[in-house]
C-alpha cells in the first residue's frame, strides 16, 4: 500500500506542478487539468512500462512516476509559475468553487442534506471496496482478466485465447450463442480499448494485490463530478446549484453502482462530460494549455470504450467548426488555430489511439470484431454492432419497439429491474428522471432565444452522441446525459419561485433517499455477510459462486484453464499463476499439462472435449472438485514439469 501511495502521490505532484505552469483561469479548470493530466500520466507510464519496455513491475512504474514528477518540476521551472495558486480560495469574481463565502454553501439545507446522503453512500462504497471481492459478470470475464495476466507476465500482451481463436468461424454457432462465444473466444480484452482498466493495473502493480481494484472508475468519476459542476456553471447556474448538480452526479444510481465494479461505463460518461466542458472552456480561452488538456481528455475518453472513437470524431469536427468560426470572426489568426488544432490532435493520439492501433495491427480493423463498410470500402469483422451485441442483450419488451419509447421507458425509471451493474431498463434514478430531464426543455429553449452558445453546444453535441449511440435506452451506456441534465436542473432551480423551490427540494430529497437506499442495499447486499468473515474468506467463491471456493484453500499454485468465461477468480487475489492449457487431442493436451508444470486443471463441461479428455487421463489427473459450471482436476504429484 505504501508503494501505491508513493506512486500515486508522485503522479499527482507531477501533474500539479505542470498545471502550476499553465494559464488556467478558474480554480475548477486547474483541478480538472490535474485530474486529466494524472490519468493521462498513468496511461502513458503503464503503456511505456508494459508495452515498450516490457518491464511492468513496481520498481519501473515507481521510477516512471517519479520521472513524471521530474517532468512537472522541469515544466514548472522553465518559465516560472504563470497560474494562480491551485489551492487558493481567493480567485476573483468568476464564481468558481474557490470564491469567498464557501461557508454559505453549508447554510443551504438542501446541499447539506444531499451532502449527508452522499457521504453515507461513499462510506458504504469504501466498505464495499475493502470487504467485497470483484464479482460482477463482465469484470471477472474480460475487464480484470487481462490486467491480472499482464501483472503476472510483467508486460502488456494479448491473451492466449486471441491467438487460439484468431481464425474463429462464427458461422458454426447460432446468433444467440454468438455473443457468448465471442466473449470466450476473444475475451474482449484483446480487442477493446482498455484505458480505464489501466487504473486497475496501476493498483495491482503498486499494491501487489487486488483489494482495491473495484475502485478502478473512482478517479474518472471524480473528474466527471468536477465536469458536471463546470457544465452547470457554463449553463448559467449559480455556484450552490452547481455544487448540488455535482453531488447528484455522484448519487446517480448507475454511477454509484459502477463505482463498486471494475467496469468502464461511469468512467466513459465522466470523460465525455469532461471533454464537453473543456471544449467549451477552450473556445472561450483559445490558448495552447486548454487545447492540450482538451486533447488529452478526448483521448482518455476515446481509449475507454469503442463508442468513444465516434464521439472523438464528433469532437474533432466541432473543434474544426469552431476554429473556422473563430477565423472568420477574426478572433484568432490562422497559424494560432492550426497550432491549437495540432496540439489537440497530438494529445488525443497520445492517450487515445494505442488500443485501436493494436487491434488494427492484429485484426486489420481498429474496431474489430465490428465490421466497417461504406463507399465500397470494407474493414473485416464479424458483423454489425446490432448483430454482435444488441440482439442478445435487448430486453424482450424492447425488441422491435420504437427507440424513443424505449428511451423514455428506461430513462423515466418505468422498468422493474433492481438497481444492479447490468440493469438495462433503469438506473438514471428518479431524481434525474423527475427533475433533470424535464429541465432540459426550458433550459434549451431559453438558450436558443438568447443565443447562448455554451448551452447549445452541450445540448447539441449530446444529441449527436445519442444518435450515434447504440442502445441509447440502456442507462449505463448513456451516463454522459446525466451531467447535461443536471446542468439544466441547476439552471431551472435557480430561477424557480421560492415556493416551488421548496416543493422541488422535497421531491429531490425523497427520490434521493429512496433511490440511494435501494441502490446501496441491492448492490452491496453481501456486505453484512462479508464483514462477519475473516479476511481470507471474503472471496468470490465464498460469497458469490461456490464453484470457485476451492481456490481459497490453495497455497500459491499454477492453475491451467481451458476455454471458459470466468477466469479472473482463479487468480485467488493474484496469488496463483493462471494460464491457458490447450491441445488438439487428448495426447497433446496431456503433454501441455506436463510441460507447463501445472498443479490444477479447470475445465468447462459445456465447452469442447477437455472434460472428457481429463477423465480419460487418470494416471495424470485426479478429480478434485465437481461444480455446477466447472470441474477441477489435480495434477498427480511428480507429474509436473519434467
Amino acid at each position: 500500500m505504501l508503494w501505491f501511495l508513493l506512486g500515486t502521490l508522485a503522479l499527482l505532484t507531477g501533474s500539479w506542478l505542470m498545471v502550476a505552469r499553465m494559464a488556467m483561469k478558474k480554480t475548477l479548470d486547474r483541478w480538472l487539468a490535474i485530474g486529466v493530466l494524472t490519468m493521462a500520466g498513468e496511461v502513458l507510464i503503464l503503456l511505456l512500462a508494459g508495452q515498450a519496455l516490457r518491464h511492468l513491475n513496481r520498481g519501473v512504474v515507481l521510477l516512471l512516476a517519479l520521472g513524471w514528477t521530474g517532468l512537472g518540476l522541469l515544466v514548472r521551472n522553465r518559465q516560472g509559475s504563470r497560474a494562480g495558486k491551485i489551492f487558493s480560495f481567493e480567485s476573483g469574481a468568476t464564481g468558481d468553487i474557490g470564491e469567498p463565502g464557501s461557508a454559505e454553501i453549508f447554510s443551504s439545507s438542501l446541499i447539506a442534506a444531499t451532502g449527508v446522503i452522499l457521504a453515507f453512500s461513499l462510506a458504504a462504497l469504501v466498505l464495499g471496496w475493502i470487504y467485497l471481492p470483484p464479482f460482477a459478470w463482465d469484470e471477472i470475464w474480460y475487464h480484470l482478466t487481462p490486467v491480472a495476466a499482464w501483472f503476472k507476465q510483467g508486460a502488456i500482451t494479448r491473451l492466449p485465447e486471441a491467438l487460439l481463436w484468431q481464425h474463429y468461424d462464427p458461422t458454426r454457432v447460432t446468433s444467440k450463442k454468438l455473443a457468448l462465444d465471442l466473449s470466450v473466444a476473444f475475451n474482449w480484452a484483446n480487442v477493446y480499448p482498455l484505458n480505464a482498466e489501466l487504473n486497475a493495473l496501476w493498483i495491482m502493480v503498486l499494491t501487489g494485490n487486488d483489494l482495491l481494484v473495484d475502485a478502478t472508475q473512482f478517479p474518472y468519476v471524480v473528474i466527471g463530478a468536477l465536469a458536471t459542476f463546470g457544465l452547470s456553471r457554463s449553463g448559467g447556474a449559480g455556484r450552490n446549484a452547481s455544487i448540488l448538480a455535482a453531488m447528484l452526479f455522484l448519487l446517480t444510481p448507475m454511477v454509484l453502482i459502477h463505482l463498486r465494479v471494475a467496469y468502464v461505463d461511469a468512467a466513459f460518461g465522466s470523460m465525455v462530460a469532461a471533454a464537453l466542458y473543456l471544449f467549451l472552456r477552450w473556445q472561450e480561452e483559445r490558448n495552447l494549455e486548454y487545447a492540450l488538456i482538451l486533447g488529452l481528455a478526448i483521448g482518455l475518453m476515446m481509449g475507454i470504450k469503442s463508442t468513444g472513437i465516434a464521439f472523438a470524431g464528433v469532437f474533432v469536427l466541432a473543434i474544426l467548426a469552431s476554429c473556422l468560426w473563430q477565423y472568420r470572426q477574426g478572433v484568432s489568426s490562422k497559424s494560432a488555430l492550426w497550432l491549437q488544432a495540432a496540439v489537440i490532435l497530438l494529445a488525443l493520439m497520445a492517450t487515445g489511439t494505442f488500443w485501436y492501433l493494436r487491434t488494427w495491427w492484429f485484426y486489420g480493423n481498429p474496431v474489430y470484431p465490428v465490421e466497417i463498410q461504406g463507399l465500397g470500402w470494407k474493414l473485416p469483422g464479424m458483423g454489425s454492432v446490432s448483430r454482435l451485441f444488441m440482439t442478445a442483450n435487448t430486453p424482450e419488451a424492447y425488441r422491435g419497439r420504437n427507440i424513443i419509447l424505449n428511451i423514455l421507458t428506461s430513462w423515466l425509471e418505468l422498468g422493474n429491474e433492481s438497481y444492479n451493474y447490468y440493469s438495462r431498463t433503469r438506473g438514471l434514478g428518479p431524481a434525474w428522471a423527475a427533475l433533470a430531464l424535464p429541465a432540459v426543455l426550458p433550459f434549451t429553449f431559453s438558450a436558443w432565444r438568447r443565443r447562448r452558445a455554451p448551452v447549445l453546444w452541450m445540448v447539441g453535441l449530446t444529441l449527436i452522441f445519442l444518435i450515434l449511440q447504440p442502445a441509447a435506452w440502456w442507462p449505463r451506456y448513456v451516463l454522459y446525459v446525466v451531467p447535461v441534465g443536471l446542468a439544466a436542473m441547476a439552471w431551472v432551480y435557480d430561477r424557480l419561485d421560492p415556493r416551488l423551490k421548496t416543493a422541488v427540494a422535497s421531491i429531490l430529497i425523497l427520490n434521493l433517499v429512496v433511490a440511494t437506499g435501494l441502490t446501496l442495499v441491492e448492490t452491496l447486499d453481501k456486505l453484512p455477510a462479508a464483514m462477519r468473515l475473516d479476511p481470507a474468506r471474503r472471496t468470490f467463491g465464498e460469497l458469490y459462486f461456490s464453484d470457485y471456493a476451492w481456490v481459497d484453500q490453495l497455497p500459491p499454485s499454477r492453475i491451467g484453464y481451458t476455454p471458459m468465461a470466468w477466469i479472473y477468480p482463479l487468480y485467488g487475489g493474484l496469488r496463483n499463476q493462471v494460464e491457458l492449457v490447450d491441445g488438439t487431442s487428448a495426447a497433446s493436451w496431456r503433454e501441455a499439462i506436463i510441460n507447463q508444470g501445472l498443479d490444477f486443471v479447470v475445465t468447462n463441461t459445456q465447452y469442447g472435449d477437455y472434460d472428457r479428455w481429463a477423465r480419460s487421463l487418470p494416471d495424470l489427473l485426479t478429480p478434485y472438485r465437481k461444480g455446477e459450471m466447472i470441474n477441477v482436476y489435480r495434477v498427480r504429484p511428480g507429474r509436473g514439469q519434467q
Partner: protein
Amino acid sequence: MSTGSGPAGDNNDRLSAFWSLFYISAALVITFLYYRNLGLWRLFEHARRWLEWVRVMLGV
C-alpha cells in the same frame, strides 16, 4: 452569438409561469409513476436487509 461559457449574468431572471408549471407538473407526474411502479414500496421490502446492516455496524 456569445462563445463564453461562464455564467451569463442572467441569474436573477425567473422562469416564466408556463415553464414553471410545465416543470413542476412533469416532476410530479414522473415521481408519481416511479412510486406507482415500485420505488418506495421496494425499499420497504428490503427492510430486513437494512436491519442486517445496522446489526453488523453495531456489532450485534
